[in-house]
C-alpha cells in the first residue's frame, strides 16, 4: 500500500490516481479500521454492515441497469435466492454457511441467465415488468414449496459459532470484503469491451448491433454478472439473520432501496450506487428508529425516490462533478481542420498508400486487371421493403464488386438509406435475398453481419453520447468471442490506431472529450473514424460528406482511397455529385426504390435519363410546376450542383 510519507516518486504516482479512487481507498481504510477502534459497539457495526449489503446489491444492479440501461425492479430476489440456497444446503449438509455462500452466488447467476435468456431477447420495457413479477413469484414459491423451504414458517439456521460479544465483527468484514470485490468487479467490467458494449446498448441499441455488439448475449451476461455478489451476500446474510422467511427474503422494499441507492448516488457511475446505498441505509435506519413500522418505510422510500427523480435526476456524484466543472471551465478545443490539411499528415497518407501498394501489390493488380470480372462481394436479388403503402425498396437487383468504390445516388426518398438498413440488418426485408461474399446473410442479426465484415455509418450520426470520443472509435467489435469481449476496452495498439484515425479526420485533439459535446459535423467525422477502425470488407457510408466542412473533403477522399487500396470495398450514398464523380466507380442511380442506371462516372454524368431522374420531378408525380417554387431555369445552377466544393 502506498503511504503518504513515501518517496517523491511514490507521491507523483499517488497524484496521478483520480481523486475518486483516493477517496474510495481512504473510506475503505476507515471502514476496515472502525471495528478495531470501536469493537464493542455492535449496533453501529450492524448499521454499517447493512449499508455494505445494500451497496453490494446496488453495485450489481448498476451493471444491468446502470451500464446496460435495462432497469431491474426485482433485484432483491437474488439476495433471497442466495439466502435460501445457503440455508437449505446448510440445513441438509451441516456445513457452515460461510463456506456455502458462493453457492448462493452461483444459484443467483444461473437463475438470472435462464430468465434473461427468455426476457432479454426483446428490447424495451418487458424486462422491467418481468423482474417485478419474478420477485413476487419467488415469494409465492418459497411460501408454497413446503418440502424445501418450510413454507411461511421459514428456516432457522445454526447460530454463529463465535462469542456473541463480537457477534457482528466477522459479518462486518465479510460484507466489507464482498463490497470491495463487487466494486472491483464492476470497475473491471466497465474497463472491458464488454462494459463498453453495455454502455453502447444503453445509448443506442440499434447502433450497438451495427458495430458488432451481440446485444442479446451482452444483456444476458450483464444480468448474470449483476447478481453474483448479491447471491453470495445473500448466503452470508442468511447466516447473519439465522432466520429466513419468504416475506423477508423476497421483499419489494429491498428492490426499491437498491434502485433508490443507485439513482441517488448516480446511475451508471462506479461509486454512485455505493454512496447512495450508505445514505439510503442511513435513512432507513432513522425511519426504523423514529418512524415506526415497515409501512412508513415503504412510504418514505417511495417519496425519496420521487424526490430524487424530480430534483436530482443525474444523481449525487454526476451532479457534483458537473458543478465542479462549471466552477472551473476548461478550455474548449476546436477542430484542427487546418492541421488536417497540413503537409505532414498528407504525406503520411501517401506513404501509407505506397506501403499498401508495396505490400498487397499483387492483390491490388488482380482487382484492377480483372475489373469487369471482379468477384461480386455483395449481391442483392429481388430485395423489397414496404412502409405501409409505400414501396421504399422495389425488387432491387444489385451487385457490388470486390475492390470497388461503388456509389448510389438518387433523389431523396428513392430508398438509398433503406437499402443500407436492409443490407446491415437494421430492418428486415419483405422479400428478396442478400448475399455477402457468397453467403446468404438476410436472416442474420446485425452484429453477425458486422462480424462477417459489414460496417456502416449513419446519415444522422449515432455516436454513443456518454462515451468519450476515443471509446467510441474503439467500441466496434470484430467478432463475438468471449476473449474479445473481456479484453481491455482501450488497449495499446488499438488505441494508437484509433488516435491515428482521429488525427486523419482532424479530430485527434478531442479523443478524451464526451462525444455528446461535439457538434454535428465533428460527430460525423468521429463516426467515420469509428467504422474505419474495424476495417470491414465492405463499408457502407451514408452521406459521408454531409455537414462536413468543404476543406476536409479532399482529406476524406484520400482516406477512402487509402483504405480502398488495401482491398476494402465501399458502397457510398452521397449527394455531393462532384465528390462522387471523382471518387466512385461504378455509380448506381436510384429512383423510386430501384436502380435505373449503372456505369462509370463518364457515362452517368452524361446520361439524360439519370439527369432527368435525379434532378427532375419524378418522385412526386403530380406536383411539377405547381405552386410558387419552380426549379430555376429548369436546371440546377452550377454552384448548387457542385455541392460544397470550391
Amino acid at each position, binding site marked *: 500500500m502506498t503511504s503518504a510519507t513515501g518517496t517523491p516518486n511514490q507521491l507523483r504516482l499517488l497524484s496521478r490516481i483520480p481523486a475518486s479512487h483516493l477517496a474510495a481507498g481512504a473510506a475503505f481504510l476507515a471502514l476496515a479500521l472502525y471495528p478495531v477502534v470501536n469493537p464493542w459497539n455492535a449496533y453501529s457495526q450492524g448499521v454499517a454492515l447493512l449499508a455494505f449489503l445494500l451497496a453490494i446489491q446496488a453495485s450489481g444492479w448498476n451493471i444491468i441497469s446502470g451500464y446496460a440501461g435495462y432497469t431491474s425492479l426485482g433485484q432483491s430476489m437474488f439476495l433471497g435466492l442466495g439466502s435460501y440456497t445457503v440455508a437449505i444446503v446448510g440445513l441438509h449438509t451441516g456445513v457452515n454457511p460461510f463456506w456455502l455462500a458462493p453457492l448462493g452466488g452461483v444459484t443467483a447467476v444461473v437463475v438470472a441467465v435462464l430468465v434473461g435468456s427468455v426476457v432479454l431477447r426483446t428490447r424495451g420495457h418487458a424486462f422491467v415488468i418481468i423482474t417485478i413479477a419474478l420477485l413476487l413469484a419467488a415469494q409465492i414459491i418459497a411460501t408454497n414449496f413446503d418440502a424445501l423451504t418450510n413454507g411461511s414458517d421459514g428456516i432457522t439456521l445454526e447460530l454463529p459459532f463465535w462469542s456473541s460479544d463480537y457477534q457482528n465483527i466477522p459479518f462486518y468484514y465479510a460484507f466489507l470484503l464482498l463490497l470491495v470485490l463487487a466494486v472491483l468487479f464492476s470497475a473491471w467490467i466497465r474497463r472491458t469491451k464488454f462494459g463498453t458494449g453495455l454502455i453502447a446498448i444503453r445509448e443506442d441499441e440499434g447502433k450497438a448491433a451495427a458495430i458488432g455488439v451481440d446485444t442479446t448475449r451482452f444483456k444476458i451476461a450483464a444480468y448474470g454478472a449483476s447478481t453474483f455478489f448479491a447471491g453470495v451476500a445473500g448466503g452470508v446474510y442468511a447466516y447473519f439473520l439465522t432466520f429466513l422467511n419468504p416475506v423477508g427474503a423476497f421483499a419489494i422494499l429491498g428492490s426499491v432501496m437498491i434502485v433508490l441507492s443507485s439513482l441517488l448516488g448516480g446511475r451508471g457511475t462506479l461509486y454512485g450506487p455505493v454512496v447512495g446505498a450508505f445514505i439510503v441505509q442511513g435513512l432507513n435506519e432513522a425511519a426504523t428508529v423514529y418512524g415506526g413500522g415497515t409501512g412508513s418505510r415503504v412510504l418514505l422510500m417511495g417519496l425519496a425516490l420521487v424526490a430524487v427523480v424530480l430534483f436530482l435526476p443525474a444523481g449525487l456524484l454526476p451532479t457534483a462533478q458537473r458543478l465542479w*466543472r462549471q466552477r472551473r*471551465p*476548461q478550455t*474548449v478545443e*476546436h*477542430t484542427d*481542420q*487546418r492541421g488536417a490539411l497540413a503537409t505532414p499528415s498528407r504525406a503520411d497518407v501517401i506513404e501509407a498508400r505506397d506501403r499498401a501498394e508495396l505490400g498487397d501489390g499483387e492483390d491490388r493488380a488482380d482487382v484492377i486487371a480483372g475489373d469487369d470480372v471482379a468477384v461480386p462481394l455483395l449481391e442483392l436479388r429481388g430485395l423489397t421493403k414496404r412502409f405501409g403503402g*409505400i414501396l421504399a425498396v422495389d425488387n432491387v437487383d444489385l451487385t457490388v464488386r470486390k475492390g470497388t468504390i461503388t456509389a448510389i445516388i*438518387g*433523389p*431523396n*426518398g428513392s430508398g*438509398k438509406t*433503406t437499402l443500407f438498413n436492409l443490407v446491415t440488418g437494421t430492418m428486415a426485408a419483405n422479400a428478396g435475398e442478400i448475399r455477402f461474399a457468397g453467403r446468404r446473410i438476410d436472416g442474420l442479426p446485425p452484429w453477425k453481419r458486422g462480424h462477417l465484415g459489414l460496417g456502416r455509418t449513419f*446519415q*444522422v450520426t449515432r455516436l454513443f453520447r456518454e462515451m468519450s470520443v476515443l471509446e467510441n472509435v474503439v467500441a466496434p467489435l470484430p467478432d463475438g468471442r468471449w476473449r474479445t469481449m473481456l479484453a481491455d476496452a482501450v488497449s495499446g495498439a488499438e488505441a494508437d490506431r484509433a488516435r491515428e484515425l482521429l488525427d486523419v479526420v*482532424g479530430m485527434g485533439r478531442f479523443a478524451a472529450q464526451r462525444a455528446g*459535446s*461535439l*457538434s*454535428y*459535423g*465533428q460527430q*460525423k467525422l468521429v463516426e467515420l473514424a469509428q467504422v474505419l477502425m474495424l476495417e470491414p470488407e465492405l463499408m457502407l457510408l451514408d452521406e459521408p460528406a454531409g*455537414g*462536413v*466542412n*468543404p*476543406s476536409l*473533403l*479532399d482529406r476524406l477522399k484520400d482516406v477512402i482511397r487509402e483504405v480502398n487500396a488495401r482491398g476494402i470495398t465501399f458502397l457510398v450514398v452521397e449527394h455531393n*455529385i*462532384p465528390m462522387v*464523380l*471523382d471518387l466512385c466507380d461504378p455509380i448506381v442511380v436510384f429512383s423510386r426504390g430501384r436502380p435505373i442506371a449503372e456505369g462509370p462516372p463518364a457515362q452517368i*454524368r*452524361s446520361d439524360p435519363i439519370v*439527369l432527368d431522374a*435525379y*434532378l427532375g420531378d419524378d418522385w*412526386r408525380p*403530380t*406536383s411539377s410546376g*405547381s*405552386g410558387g*417554387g*419552380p*426549379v430555376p431555369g429548369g436546371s*440546377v*445552377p*452550377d*454552384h*448548387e*450542383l*457542385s*455541392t*460544397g*466544393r*470550391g
Partner: protein
Amino acid sequence: MRAVTGANLLTMSGVTAGYGGGDVLQGVDLTCVEGTVTCIVGPNGAGKSTVLRVLSGLLRPRSGTVTMAGARTDRLPPDEILRLGVAQVPQSHALFPAMTVRENVLMGGYLIRRQRALLAERLDMIGARIPIVRERAHDAAGNLSGGQRRMVEIARCLMLDPKLILLDEPSLGLDPRSLAAVADVIRTLHESDTTVLLVEQNVRLGLGLATHGVVMEGGRVRLTGTAAEVGEHPEMAALYLGGAPGQTPGRDRPSARA
C-alpha cells in the same frame, strides 16, 4: 435583390456559452439587419450551431447579451423567444416520427392553435411553397427519407410566419433538386422581408443565397461583411473553401454537366 436599409433586428454582443464542459462561444458579436439573409460559415465545431441555439433560447449564454428588436432575449425561455418571432430549424432529428406530415407542420403553429382560419391559410400557403407538405400530408413523418424530412422541418417553422428564421444547415442530406427547392424557399423568404440567419457547410450555396456573410472559427467571429466580400476574401478561400493556396481549386468540378 432589395437594397438593405433596415435596422438591426438582432444583436449579439460578447456572448459566451457552452454545454458544461467549457465555453464553446468565446465572446461572439453578431448583428442581423432586418430583411437580410446572413450566412455563418466556418470549420466543424467552430460554434455555428451553438450561436443558433443561444438565439432560439435552447442554450442560455453564460455572459453577454442578445437583443431582438430592442428587447433582451438572452434570459427568456424558448417559447417566449418563439413568440417574439424567432423560429429555428435544427440540424437533425426534429420531426415527430409517429405524426403525419400535416400534423408535424401544424405543430409548428402550436402558439396560434386557436386561430383555425389563420392556421388553414398558413398551411395552404406553405403547401404551395413546399409541395411535399401537400403530397405526403397523411404519411407518417418517420416514413420519409432524410431529405424529405428536411423539407417538412423547414415548412413547419413557417407556420408562425416568423420575423427571423434560424436555419441550421438547410442543405444537409438534400438531393440537388430538393436543394434548389430549399434555395428557392429561402429566396422567397428574403423577398417577403423575412430575416434569415443560416449556418451552412455548403459555402457556395450559403453565400450565394445570402446578403451578408460571417466567418466563425474557434468560438469567435473572424470575419463579417457582405456575402460577396466574405466569399472573395483571400483568407476565407484558403481556409474554408477547401482551396488552400498551392492546391488546384475546383479539381473535382465536372468539366461539363451534360
